[in-house]
């Protein structure tokens, strides 16, 4: 049987599609390919809503079970898991309506918004780490910003297949600290062109070549960012004196203005009196 080019491509396409007979889902379209498998948009016939279906080889389904059990606002909730007639495993999960982080950044959000997103990602990371789950492939392509501003971190637990080297820690064995590295790289990615040196320093500390020199956990990194936002000194950056004074002045601006007003009034009265 001779197979023409067009037939060959067609067969490659249709044989790859998941056979959803026996499930309550109706295939709609392919959304993307992650390290673990392919993600499709599908319709849940019973609940009449759209879902995302992740289809993967059974062998890779093991760790996915662990992740499916995580419940966190920044981790996509899993509705159902099962095995397809063709032997592959599938996960039905929430179909996130929104934009991937790298596209979202094109709309030039404010620094506060960028840091808010970073915080959400860090919180998800801390949550997962506390339950023994490591992401291993954290990068902007794996973060979605939903239509209501909610943040989702996706594609957990799969070591980068053809990894984006910029976000991958240098060490061979990936663990929680490698995720911290990736979080730092993500922060740096999100910072605007000329970022505040304190934030740059936070990112650099997280991305230190030596894992033990990085932040011990995601919460420590977030705490440093919070200190920056409150005008406090940041652990990662030893600031020059003039910057420290500027910070002090901005945090105590009201008091300093009042004192200045007092002094000003006093001087004014004194000199007016002597005129």
């Amino acid at each position, binding site marked *: *049987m001779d197979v023409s080019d067009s*037939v060959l491509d067609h067969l*490659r396409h249709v044989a*790859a599609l998941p056979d959803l007979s026996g499930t309550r889902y109706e295939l709609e379209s392919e959304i993307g390919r992650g390290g673990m498998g392919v993600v499709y948009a599908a319709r849940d016939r019973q609940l009449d809503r759209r879902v995302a279906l992740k289809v993967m*080889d059974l062998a890779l389904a093991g760790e996915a079970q662990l992740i499916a059990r995580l419940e966190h606002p920044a981790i996509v909730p899993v509705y159902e898991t099962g095995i397809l007639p*063709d*032997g592959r495993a599938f996960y039905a999960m929430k179909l996130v309506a929104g934009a991937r982080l790298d596209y979202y950044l094109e709309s030039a959000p404010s620094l506060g918004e960028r840091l808010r997103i970073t915080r959400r990602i860090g919180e998800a990371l801390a949550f997962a780490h506390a339950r023994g789950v490591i992401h291993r492939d954290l990068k902007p392509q794996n973060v979605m910003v939903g239509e209501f501003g909610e943040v989702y971190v996706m594609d957990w637990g799969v070591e980068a297949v053809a990894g984006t080297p910029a976000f991958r820690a240098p060490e061979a064995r990936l663990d929680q600290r490698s995720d911290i590295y990736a979080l730092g790289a993500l922060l740096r990615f999100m910072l605007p062109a000329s970022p505040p040196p304190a934030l740059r320093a936070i990112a650099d500390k997280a991305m230190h070549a030596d894992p033990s020199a990085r932040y011990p956990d995601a919460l420590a990194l977030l705490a440093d960012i919070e200190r920056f936002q409150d005008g406090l000194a940041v652990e990662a950056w030893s600031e020059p004196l003039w910057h420290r004074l500027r910070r002090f002045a901005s945090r105590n601006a009201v008091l300093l203005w009042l004192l200045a007003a007092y002094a000003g009034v006093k001087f004014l009265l004194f000199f007016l009196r002597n005129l």
Partner: protein
Amino acid sequence: MRLDPDTTMGGPQGQFPSTQLSLLEAASAGATLPNEALERVSALYWKPVYRFIRVKFRKNNEDAKDLTQSFFATALQRDLFARFDPAKASFRTYLRMAVERFAANEHAARNRQKRGGDVEFEPVGEQAALSESPDDIFEREWRRQLFALALDDLRAHCDACGKQLQFEIFEAYDLAGGDRPSYADLSARHSIAETSVTNYLAWARRMLRQFVTERLRGVTAGERDLRDELRRLWM
């Protein structure tokens, strides 16, 4: 190869047990592959190798056939497989490189016998004129042959299980060269419900997928190679 007939349309029982050994398993006895494994490799790789030699080394039909035949007869017999390192490349890539070496050696040997060094072919430089690189052609022909063999398997399976109708529907739709008929057309033509058309196609595609996987299993080094090739294969 007797396959269990597929009795259920849905459910994991649709999968049949694998009877194929991977190349690593087949070669476990020694450094050379047993004949059965060699046959499997030839069945799949003959056409792709032939086309590859024709395009890359600019051989005519006869010379290309000779070289291909020669490659399979001699090169594979010689500890070719023993030098294969699954960690470095897929078996497909390894075989292609082996063909290149073989053809280059043949050419060098022939040139030594000639006088004047009239170059018969240029392994490099001419490829700019082609739209596809010889490597891509090799992969595409390999895929083509893989599916062709799997389709033969599917047809044989359908004949054996009395599922000729399913195959006809599948052939009419998925193997259609030009315009595809609509589900409604097929439903009318064969006097079956449209949902049956959907179900038959889903079944046939599922079976095809399994046949492709089985064929692939017999010509890949092991699980890792198989999985990587499968990932490349499916669009």
